[in-house]
C-alpha cells in the first residue's frame, strides 16, 4: 500500500486566501482523489430518516476519505450523525432511509451496486465493528460458528473443518487467550472485552480493505479499551486496512487518528491531520471539545464545557452555522450564512470564517462558562 504517498493532495492555498477578511466560499466538493485500491471516498453524503410526520436530516452533506493503511477518526457528540454516516456508507439502513451522495471503495461506486453485490461486498471488502459488543453477536450461536459462517459466506474457507480452524486462528490473532475454547463458547460466556475481540475477529476475517469501527470501545473498561485500540493499530499494520473510527472520545481520537473529521449537527466543521486538528483547532467547536477534556496540563478548575446543548438530531436550524447558538465568537453573519469548509492549512479545512483558521488561545469564560465541569 502506498502509505508514504499523500494521495489526498492539499489544494494550493495562497496566503492571500488565508488572510482575506472574507474568505471566498469553498464551493462544491473538493477534488476527488484518484481511485486507489482500498481507498474509501465519500462525497456529499446526506442521510434522511423519514417517518409519517416528518423527515429528519441526520447527515447533511459530508465528504471524507479513508486511505489504505490510515485511520480517519469521525469525531463528534452523540447525535452529530457520525454513526449514521458510517452505517449509511455500508448501506445498512432500509429503503425508508434516504441516502444521497457518492461513496466509492477502491473505485467501486457503493451506492450503484445492486443489493446482492453489496451483500457480498459487506464483510469482505468493508467490515463493521459495531458499538454494542454484547448485543451484536447472535446469542444462540457459538462464536466459532459465527466466524466460520462469514468465512464460508465470502469464500475464504470452504470446508467446515478448515473454517473452524481458521476461526480459532483469528480469535488468537485478536488476542483471545484460549482460542480453542472461545471457538466453542456462546457469546454470553465471554466477557465484554472478549466479545468485542470476537466481533473484531469476525470483521477482519476476510481481511477487508476498510474497517468501519463504530464506537468500538465505548462500552469497555478503560484498560480493556486501551488493549482494543492497540489491537486495532496492530491489525491495521499487519493487514494494511483503512480504518474509519467513529468516536466521541477525544482521547481515542488522539491515540488513533491520522486524520480527524469533526462532525456537528450532521455536517463536518473541521477536517485535517490528527495532530493539527487536536492540537491547533481551527473551529470553535473543536476547540470547545478539546477544552472539555482533561489533559495532564489542564490546571485544576480550568476544564470548560461548551455552553448549551447540541441540537437533537435533525433539529438543527439550517440557516447559518448550526454551532452559532453556542459559539462565543458568533457574529451576525453566522446566523444567516452557512459557512463552507475552507482550507486553513496544509490538508486542513474548517468551516468557520470568523476565527480565520485559528481559534484564539485566550478564550474568555463564556456567559455560560459557569457550567464548566
Amino acid at each position, binding site marked *: 500500500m502506498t502509505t508514504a504517498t499523500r494521495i489526498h493532495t492539499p489544494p494550493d492555498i495562497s496566503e492571500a486566501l488565508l488572510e482575506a477578511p472574507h474568505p471566498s466560499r469553498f464551493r462544491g466538493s473538493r477534488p476527488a482523489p484518484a481511485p486507489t485500491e482500498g481507498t474509501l471516498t465519500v462525497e456529499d453524503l446526506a442521510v434522511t*430518516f423519514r417517518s409519517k*410526520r416528518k423527515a*429528519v436530516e441526520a447527515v447533511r452533506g459530508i465528504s471524507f476519505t479513508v486511505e489504505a493503511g490510515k485511520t480517519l477518526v469521525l469525531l463528534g457528540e452523540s447525535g452529530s450523525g457520525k454513526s449514521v454516516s458510517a452505517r449509511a456508507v455500508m448501506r445498512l439502513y432500509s429503503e*425508508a432511509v434516504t441516502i444521497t451522495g457518492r461513496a466509492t471503495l477502491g473505485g467501486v461506486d457503493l451506492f450503484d451496486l445492486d443489493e446482492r453485490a453489496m451483500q457480498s461486498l459487506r464483510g469482505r471488502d468493508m467490515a463493521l465493528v459495531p458499538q454494542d459488543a454484547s448485543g451484536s453477536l447472535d446469542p444462540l450461536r457459538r462464536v466459532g460458528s459465527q466466524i466460520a459462517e462469514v468465512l464460508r459466506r465470502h469464500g475464504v474457507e470452504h470446508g467446515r473443518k478448515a473454517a473452524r480452524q481458521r476461526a480459532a486462528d483469528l480469535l488468537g490473532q485478536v488476542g483471545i487467550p484460549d482460542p480453542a475454547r472461545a471457538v466453542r463458547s456462546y457469546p454470553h460466556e465471554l466477557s465484554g472485552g472478549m466479545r468485542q475481540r470476537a466481533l473484531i475477529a469476525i470483521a477482519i476475517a476476510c481481511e477487508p480493505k476498510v474497517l468501519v469501527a463504530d464506537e468500538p470501545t465505548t462500552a469497555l473498561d478503560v484498560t480493556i479499551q486501551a488493549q482494543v485500540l492497540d489491537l486495532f493499530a496492530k491489525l491495521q499494520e499487519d493487514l494494511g486496512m483503512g480504518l474509519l473510527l467513529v468516536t466521541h472520545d477525544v482521547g481515542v481520537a488522539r491515540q488513533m487518528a491520522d486524520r480527524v473529521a469533526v462532525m456537528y449537527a450532521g455536517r463536518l466543521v473541521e477536517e485535517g491531520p490528527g495532530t493539527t486538528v487536536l492540537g491547533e483547532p481551527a473551529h470553535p467547536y473543536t476547540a470547545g471539545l478539546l477544552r472539555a477534556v482533561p489533559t495532564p496540563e489542564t490546571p485544576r478548575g480550568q476544564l470548560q464545557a461548551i455552553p448549551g446543548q447540541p441540537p*437533537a438530531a435533525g433539529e438543527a436550524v439550517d440557516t447559518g452555522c448550526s454551532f452559532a447558538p453556542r459559539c462565543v465568537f458568533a457574529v451576525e453573519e453566522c446566523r444567516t450564512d452557512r459557512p463552507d469548509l475552507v482550507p486553513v492549512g496544509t490538508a486542513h479545512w474548517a468551516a468557520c470564517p470568523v476565527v480565520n483558521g485559528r481559534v484564539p488561545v485566550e478564550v474568555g469564560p463564556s456567559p455560560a462558562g459557569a457550567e464548566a465541569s
Partner: protein
Amino acid sequence: MSAIEIPTGNAAPGRGGAAAVLVGTHRARRHVPLTVVIPGAFLAIVILAAIFAPLVAPYGPTTGSISQRLMAVGSSGHLLGTDGQGRDILSRLIWGARPTLLEGIVPVVVAGVIGTVLGMVASLSGRKIHTLIMRTLDVLYSFPAVLLAIALAAALGAGVVNAIVALTIVLVAPIARVAETEVARMRSADFMEAARASGASWPRIARRQVLPIIAPVLLVYCTALVGLAIVFAGGLSFLGLGIAPPHPEWGSMLNDLDQDLYNQPVLALIPAAAIFLTSVAFNVLGDGLRDLLDIHSETVS
C-alpha cells in the same frame, strides 16, 4: 400455566428502530380509543339486557310448546327461532346471559381481590412466606386451567355457585402471579426504599405506594381475563356443570342445540356466537384499556 395467559398474549412492544429513536415519539392528545368504545358499548347492551331480562325478553326462559319446536331464525314471533322443546332462543339467550355473566365476572372479581392480596403479601413480606405462597400457587398452576375447573366443579357438583367457586380457585394463581411480578418490578424503586426507610410497615406501603401503581395493570389483565372466564363458564355449563336445566345458560344451550344440529344447524351457532362475541369484547376491551391507561408492562402487554 395453560390458557390463563391467553387473552393478553405477550406482545412485547417492538422497538422503533433508528428512525423512531431519532424522531422521538410525539404523543398525540389522548382520545378514548375505539377499542374501548365499541366493546364497551356492546358489553353494556349485553349486561343491561341480562339485568332487565324480565322486561326485555319476549318470552319466559322455560316456556315453550313442543308444537313450535325448531323454528328457523327469523320466524315470526321468534326472531332467533326456537329450540328442540319449542322455547324461544332469543329469550333463553337473554335469560342465559345472567348465569353466564355471573360465572364470568364474579370469579374474576373475587380472584382479583384474593390474588392481588396474595401477590402483594408474597412480594412484600419475608422470603419464607413468599416461597410458601408462590410454591402453593405453582401447584394450581401446574394443572391445565380448564381441567382444574372441570375437576373442581365436578367434585363440588353442578350449579352456578359451585361453578363460580371452581373458576375463582382457578383464577387466583395467575392473578397472584401477575401481581407478584408487578410488585417485584417496583420493589427496588427509590420511593419504596424511602418509604421503608421512613419506617412504614409493609401493609401500609402496600396500600399507599404499591396498590395505586399495580392497580391499572391488574385492571387491564382482569378485564381480558373475564373473556377467558366466560369461555370457561360456557365450557362448564356445556358439560352440564352449570345451572340446572331447564334454566338456560349459554354453554348448556349450545349443548342442547347441538342435538338438533342436522335439523337446524344454524341455531346451535347462536349461543356459540354469543360466548365468542362476549369473550372477544372483553379481550379487545382489555387491549383498549391498556392503550388508554398507557401501560407498558411485560406481564400484561
